């Protein structure tokens, strides 16, 4: 099982969080707000493309809207294998952190 990178992990969690609203513009706004870091459109786009090509997320084409100049929205949702790799990553992290939390936070 391949582990996710930090950026991939954050992106997938964001997709989960936004549910049906998960598409590039919203994801970027959310990430900008919650990670206190500026995400460029390209950065989000490239990450999404990569996750899609790995098969962790799958696209769903929405209706074209007028405010987008008549262009359709590409929504994303997490696939089964995406969930698996999230789980594996979380497990790994928990294992690694196990018993060290106090040492790190209280020192």
């Amino acid at each position, binding site marked *: 099982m391949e582990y996710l990178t930090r950026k991939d992990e954050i992106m997938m969690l964001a997709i989960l*969080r*936004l*549910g049906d*609203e998960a*598409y*590039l*513009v*919203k994801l*970027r*706004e*959310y990430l900008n707000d919650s990670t206190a870091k500026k995400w*460029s*459109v*390209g*950065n989000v*786009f*490239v990450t999404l*493309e990569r996750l899609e090509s790995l098969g962790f997320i799958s696209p769903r084409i929405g209706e*074209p809207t*007028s*405010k*987008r*100049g008549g*262009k*359709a*929205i*590409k929504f994303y949702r997490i696939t089964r294998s995406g969930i698996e790799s999230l789980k594996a990553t979380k497990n790994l992290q928990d294992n690694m952190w196990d018993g060290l939390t106090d040492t790190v936070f209280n020192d």
Partner: protein
Amino acid sequence: MALQTRYSMTKKIRTEYQKPPGFAGWVFRKLLCEKESRFLTGDYEEIFSELTIEKGIVKAQIWYWTHLFFTLPHILRRSLFRSGAMIKNYIKITFRNIKRQKGYSFINISGLAIGMACCILILLFIQDELSYDRYHKNAENIYRITYNEIIGGVYAEFALSPFAFAPAMKAELPEVISYVRFFRRTGLFTIAEKKFEERNILLADSTFFEIFSHEFIEGVPETCLDQPRSIVLTEESAFRLFGSVEIIGRTMILNEADELTVTGVIRNVPRNSHFRFNYVVSSSTILSKSERFRQLFQAWLSVFGWSYLLLDSKADINEIESKFEDIFERNSGSVARQYGIEAHMALQKMTDIHLRSKLQDEKDINSDIAYIYIFSAIAVFILGIACINFINLSTARSVNRAREVGLRKVFGAVKKSLIRQFIAESTGLAIIALVIAIIIAALVLPIFNDISGKFFSLAALNRPSVWLGAVSLVVLTGLIAGSYPAFYLSGFDPVRVFRSKFSNIRNRFNFRNILVTLQFVISIVLITSTLIIIEQIEFMKNKNLGFDKEQVVVARVRGTGIRQNLASFKNELRQRPDIIQFSCSESVPGRSNSVLTIFQEGRSENESHSMDIMSADFDFVETMGIEILYGRDFSRDFTSDTSGVYLINETAAKKLGWGNEAVGKLIGVSQELMNKVVGIVKDFHFKSLKTKIEPLVIILDPQHFNYISIKMRTDNVSETISFIENKWKEFESDRSFNYFFLDEDFDSLYRSEEKLEKILTSFAAIAIFIACLGLFGLASFTAEQRTKEIGIRKTLGAAASNVFLILSADFTKWVMIANCAALPAGYYLMKNYWIQSFAYPVNIGIGLIFEAFVLSILIAALTVGFQTLKAASANPVESLRHE
């Protein structure tokens, strides 16, 4: 879930769609594939619309552009990755083609490389020429005062200006921030008993270093010239005289009189300065002791040095110039009228001096903007010729690539991608050529320096501008050379290509021939121009000048030793039988004379004339071999001669209105000082042949001289010179014996023409070479394509000579046509833009045109001949066997 709802709730209601910048959208569409771009641009446009509503259109635009910019790397990487496979294939095919067709590739690449090397060097040259004087902090606001006067109808424009002028302007015009005046001398420095004869010493106002920015190693720019007897040295002269640069406060004696204190050392004057110097001495040094100089510094009508102004950056030049008249009139108008002088001043921008100023008494020889144009034109021509080679050879060989194109099309390549492939291929070749070009440029740099008179080092090649130029060269040649073949090749019809008899060689009047003709037109124009320039220079060097310049050695007298003991020095020289004659004079032919106002007997003051005047000794006419037409030479037999009688030339006699009757008449430099004209000399060229012979007055004044000219026998020249040198040393222990041969010195007047000759010869040769490379390639290709035809012709009884004629007729025809266009063009250009600037132009005969014609035909024939001969003499059995 709570967060999610909050998130969608807080969003403002988005209403209207705003259209983002069109160009940015276009970039996206080009870089991304159709499917991707649809979503991504949608996302972009959504954010854009929102931002427009929230923060206004300007901020939204800025956002759009910055994001596009920062997204580009991500997107580019992706799109490159996707097309990577294809690019790999293109590169592979390019290299296979280079390898398979070594000969053609060599011709293409070497032609392009030579062309590019020329361009790189020319770029260096032009950049250097344009950089003159820009290094001064105030370069844009420094102006030189120029002075022009009309005396007796003769107009003269000087780089010099009267010294009283600049201070008056500073006092009256608020726009003038500061001024500096300086003049140049040679001098003798004494440092601890050691003597140095030095040139290029400037005597300058204390503001010199405030106006001109020079980097100080030691000393303070603002105050270093404030005190009398201060001197600033350049790094190089400091090392030569003191062996160190830490010499502030050290002393040196100028001309065995003034003790100077070193107050500063500056870095050597940059080469791209329109005047260079080795020393700057405060002018107060000389003012404090010489009444004559005090007067000169307040003079309104005599010029002997240069003045520069530092103006306010907002100053209006025309307005300032319009006030000159008034200032001049108030201060010296009446005096000027009294002497019959009409004088004007003007301003000249310092940064224009190097390329656009050709006045009398420039400090150093200036360049000419024409060189910039000529060089640029040559660069374009040569690169053009190289590109034409590329176009011709690629289209000629298109048969060989036709199958590849067909196959690619069958497999779904569209015209656009094929065009991209061919342009990429030519750009690839251009890159290879560039690498070679840089190597070539580095190798020929010394030769180029010699031709152009520059001092570029290898490091000069490693400049941002050169790299930028190189990259644009690659893109340019890639596009120019690649575009025609790309459109031509990509247009092939796959169905036609795969029919076995596909061939496109025998097209009659085609683009390729026009291009070959064009190459030869350019080359022949260059050949013709070069031949005409050579002819003109030869003409000027060999024309009878009216005096005998051969076997005359001229020495410049700077010290006082010879002046004080002139009689005994002359006696020493008379001892030597190899010396035929010698004479002292103020000037010699080829060097500049004073220009004075000449008054004549029987005319009023207002009818004066401005004429060249020089003082000379009794034997001057004889030493120079000048012919006396009327009257007699100066003669020791007439005691009255010593009061200062005149010889005038024919032109002067005509100008004075006396003609042959001038002998015995009185002329003079002022109404009070009139003296007799004893003879009229035949006109001789005392200036270069670029100008008409002007009126000249020679006054007998043996005491007033700068040069000693010595005419000697042809044998034992070196012994005679060393004899003179030894005698010289006896009289002038401090000063070295500097001499030159009169003929060489006179010929050096044509140095700029010779420079042009050198430049054109080399570039014409290169242009011809590249054009011939292309012709050679084309010829061998044609011969190769027509092997079978030749074989059949020969079996049917054609002789090798017939075949040779058939094959070469084609090329000869085009070279002939090129000649028809180029010979008149070259002739016309040179006649109207170059030759006409000479007062004594050479007559361009039909012989010279014929010479150019034969030369070009010969070169073309030789180029084509070898390949053609090989094809014509081949055994037909060989070529027909495989059918």
